[in-house]
């Protein structure tokens, strides 16, 4: 099969997986771990590139190619460092718990947890353009706030579920051990979050 053919197959697999994450997350994660291919990561990366291109435009707010490229590169590498750090932490924690797993398996499973993250950041950027903050305490302001927070919390529950399924299927852990892995990873990710905030890259962590 030529390159385009392989890409098309991976695109279909990616589409099926994303649909599955919405309707049947449990079964879909089982399939990702058993039959997922590294080629699908290209499409997660493409979604990130799409979002960071838009975010760079919104943040720079002018068409200046050097600044836009600089902002894009900063966001992309910062996000990539976050993903690699998360996966690395889970991998090290799995070794501490003496669980046999491959780095690529965790990377593939974790990459799909970025779908809710990308969706939230993309929607927030668009809303920033349409209805820029700050929100007022008027009835409309409060109503918008309630809807926005409900939307954010819904995506957060989805994200938490996908993170748990990543640990459950890629490491074959039970709930207690999954919590232990999360607790082991939390300080490292908190450190990353604080530095990203201090450097002005992400105020809300892109994890």
């Amino acid at each position, binding site marked *: 099969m030529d390159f385009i053919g392989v890409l098309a197959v991976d695109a279909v697999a990616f589409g099926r997986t994303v649909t599955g994450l919405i309707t049947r*997350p449990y079964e879909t994660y089982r399939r990702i771990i058993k039959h997922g291919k590294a080629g699908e990561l290209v499409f997660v990366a493409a979604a990130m590139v799409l979002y960071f291109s838009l975010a760079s435009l919104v943040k720079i707010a002018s068409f200046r190619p050097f600044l836009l490229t600089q902002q894009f590169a900063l966001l992309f590498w910062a996000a990539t460092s976050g993903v690699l750090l998360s996966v690395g932490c889970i991998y090290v924690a799995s070794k501490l718990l003496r669980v046999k797993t491959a780095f690529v398996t965790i990377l593939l499973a974790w990459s799909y947890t970025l779908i809710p993250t990308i969706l939230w950041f993309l929607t927030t950027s668009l809303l*920033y353009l349409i209805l820029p903050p700050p929100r007022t305490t008027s009835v409309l302001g409060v109503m918008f706030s309630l809807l926005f927070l409900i939307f954010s919390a819904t995506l957060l529950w989805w994200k938490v579920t996908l993170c748990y399924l990543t640990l459950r299927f890629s490491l074959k852990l039970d709930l207690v051990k999954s919590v232990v892995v999360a607790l082991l990873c939390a300080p490292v990710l908190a450190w990353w979050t604080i530095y990203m905030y201090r450097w002005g890259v992400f105020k809300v962590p892109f994890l």
Partner: protein
Amino acid sequence: MSDTTYQKFVKRWEEVTDIPPQTLGPLTGVYKQITKRLKVMPWPWFVAASIGFVLALYVLVGSTITILTSLLQGGF
């Protein structure tokens, strides 16, 4: 049982038994009840939990909730 059905059953059985069943002592029943609802189309539960959470937050902090929204909106 035909060979094809049996092969499908074996394949499915191997998939299901690939990870050990979850046990949480006396909380196992509660865990199963919650996860049962999250395995297929979990959105109604996600939205319901979010509405409950946000309304509780609104009751607690009132219109100060708009500050949180402003922070999150500028947080991308």
